[in-house]
């Protein structure tokens, strides 16, 4: 059996909540406790709400795929804390580059979950416009692993060149956060992104979700040393966190983004988490991992942990019931609106291939229209 090489027991690991929901900060968490203490009950409950709602949505989308409504679904099941904490840490003006599993990151920024469904249903390659204010500067999903890390770095370089970062005002300065996985960390693009980021001191946070598996390949095949330690080689300060602890994810990302936007250069975070479900709905994890392993991670469930913590702080039954109702409503709404998604016009494929007229496209669009019309005219 493989040996995971994540930072689970690294001395630098930041964890605030233990698996049972008790507050048990690691030594490395000390500098963050003040920030966490300042969180209001409403904010803490909001983290829980985000995680609970996305899990229900994720389950619904998985079911929709099983019913043949979606071509594919990449579940976020198990990674809720890493995603929610980091997304809640970003400021409204920040730019986010997800990979393809960051459903709740997108939802927190305002992206309609049905827009994510449209991608997986085969209706679009994009689904939302990052520049539309309602999408909170959230870029669309990237399926070529790691390539978004370079785009994020370039955008961050642009922020610096335009003086939109590093002015000293964290309320207006912009930063970038880019998400990628342990598998993606092996791609050349990710290494090149880190070289550029460090060279140009970009206002950027590399947020690596180490969910232990790249489809069937364990993280040990990607890296023999904990991934966060690579940061030092590029000159990028890097912090390992318990990715199933939403408080650690929030606090560490908050500080890293603020440091980055203050001109201190890029930061990296490795969130130690676990993909509790299959890689995608096409995958069968029983082929490569054990039930023991899955159970050991189920005991560290990010949502159960936060629930226990909130109960300890006196959150009411009414609160939990209300979150449950909201989650069910969001999932049901996704189901209903997915069923109502119509088809798309066939000539859509010629839209936006170029921004200026192109004779080949014009010719083929016209040909297709005539061709399709020739069928309609046929007497039935």
């Amino acid at each position, binding site marked *: 059996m493989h040996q995971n090489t994540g930072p689970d027991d690294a001395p630098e690991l930041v964890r605030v909540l233990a698996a049972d929901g008790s507050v048990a900060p690691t030594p490395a968490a000390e500098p963050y406790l003040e920030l966490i203490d300042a969180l209001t009950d409403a904010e803490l409950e909001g983290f829980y709400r985000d995680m609970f709602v996305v899990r229900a949505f994720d389950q619904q989308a998985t079911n929709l795929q099983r019913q043949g409504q979606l071509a594919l679904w990449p579940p976020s099941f198990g990674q809720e804390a890493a995603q929610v904490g980091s997304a809640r840490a970003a400021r409204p003006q920040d730019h986010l580059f997800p990979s393809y599993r960051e459903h709740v990151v997108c939802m927190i920024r305002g992206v309609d979950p049905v827009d994510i469904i449209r991608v997986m*249903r085969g209706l679009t390659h994009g689904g939302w416009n990052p520049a539309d204010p309602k999408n909170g500067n959230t870029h669309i999903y990237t399926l070529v692993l790691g390539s978004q890390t370079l785009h994020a770095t370039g955008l961050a370089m642009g922020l610096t060149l335009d003086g939109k970062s590093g002015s000293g005002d964290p309320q207006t300065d912009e930063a970038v956060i880019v998400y990628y996985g342990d598998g993606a960390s092996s791609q050349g693009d990710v290494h090149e992104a880190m070289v550029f980021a460090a060279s140009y001191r970009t206002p950027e946070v590399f947020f690596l979700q180490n969910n232990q598996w790249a489809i069937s390949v364990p993280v040990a095949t990607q890296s023999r040393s904990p991934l966060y330690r690579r940061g030092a080689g590029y000159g990028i300060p890097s912090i390992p966190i318990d990715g199933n602890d939403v408080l650690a994810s929030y606090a560490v990302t908050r500080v890293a983004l603020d440091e980055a936007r203050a001109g201190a250069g890029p930061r990296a975070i490795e969130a130690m988490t676990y993909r509790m479900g299959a890689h995608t709905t096409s995958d069968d994890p029983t082929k490569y991992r054990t039930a023991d392993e899955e159970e050991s991670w189920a005991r560290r469930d990010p949502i159960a942990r936060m629930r226990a913590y909130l109960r300890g702080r006196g959150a009411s039954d009414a609160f939990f019931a209300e979150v449950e109702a909201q989650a069910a409503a969001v999932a049901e709404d996704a189901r209903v609106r997915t069923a109502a998604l119509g088809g*798309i016009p066939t000539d859509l494929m010629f839209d936006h291939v170029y921004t200026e007229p192109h004779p080949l496209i014009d010719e083929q669009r016209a040909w297709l229209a005539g061709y399709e019309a020739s069928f309609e005219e046929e007497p039935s």
Partner: protein
Amino acid sequence: MPFSRALNAGLRRAMTENDRVIMMGEDIGRLGGVFRVTEGLQAEFGEQRVLDTPLAESGIVGTAIGLAMAGFRPVCEIQFDGFVFPAFDQITSQLAKITNRHEGALSMPVVIRIPYGGHIGAVEHHQESPEVYFTHTPGLRVVSPSTPNDAYWMIQDAITSTDPVIFLEPKSRYWQKGEVDAAARALPLHASRLVRRGTDVTLVGHGAMVATLLQAAALAESEGTSCEVIDLRSLSPVDYGPILDSVRRTGRMVYAQEAPGFTSLGSEVAATVMEKAFYALEAPVLRVSGFDAPFPPAKLEGTFLPDADRILEAVDRTLAY
């Protein structure tokens, strides 16, 4: 047996016959590949010969080049067509040119297996037709089987080739069944194959399109038009013999492909046929292609990809000359 099992059997036989043959790719070991083509090979030949690589395509091909330098015969799997591009530099600038650069002192017996083409309803980057990027690169051989028997033999021939071979697997055919004759090799790796006899129009294509051509030919038959069908099999080099023979008999030709038509394989074959069989032609060679737009979202692939109707429309046009 199914196409994917035929490949699996061919790979197993190649590994058994030559212990310098090794496999490398993402998820090819314990999982047996996302299409299960390498299933069971790691259990049989061990982790030294079937490598679950780090997730890095440039790394896979670049290190395969070094392994070939060390005397191995690496067979690389690229998980999906759209993910070959991170390895593009290693394939086109390095793998293709190393023999030439060394003035023949080094050969590069590397096979790169790529599941390609549409019709599986997948998301972006999972259904592309990148064949001409490779056929345009001197130094590479490019082949694509369309039947289980060809899959079985062509993968073995590709592995014994001392040149680099881009081995394109039409992924929509993985589940298609057919006879495999493990006793006799049907044709050499670079031969094209006459699949169906006919007298009026020559239909040519490769990979998954061959099945669509046969479907079109059957439909044409019912309308009184007799089509000959040729499976290219080898995309570089192209074996023109059977194609020219056929066109000299029928006087008409249609090339069908999933890839966009502009500067495509069909363009190349059509131009060559017009040069070499000009006086035999009764009509211009026509091409039926995917559109010159990015491969669309899955809901539109049925419109994007040529089907039997689109091929028949071209057959009608060529007959109308």
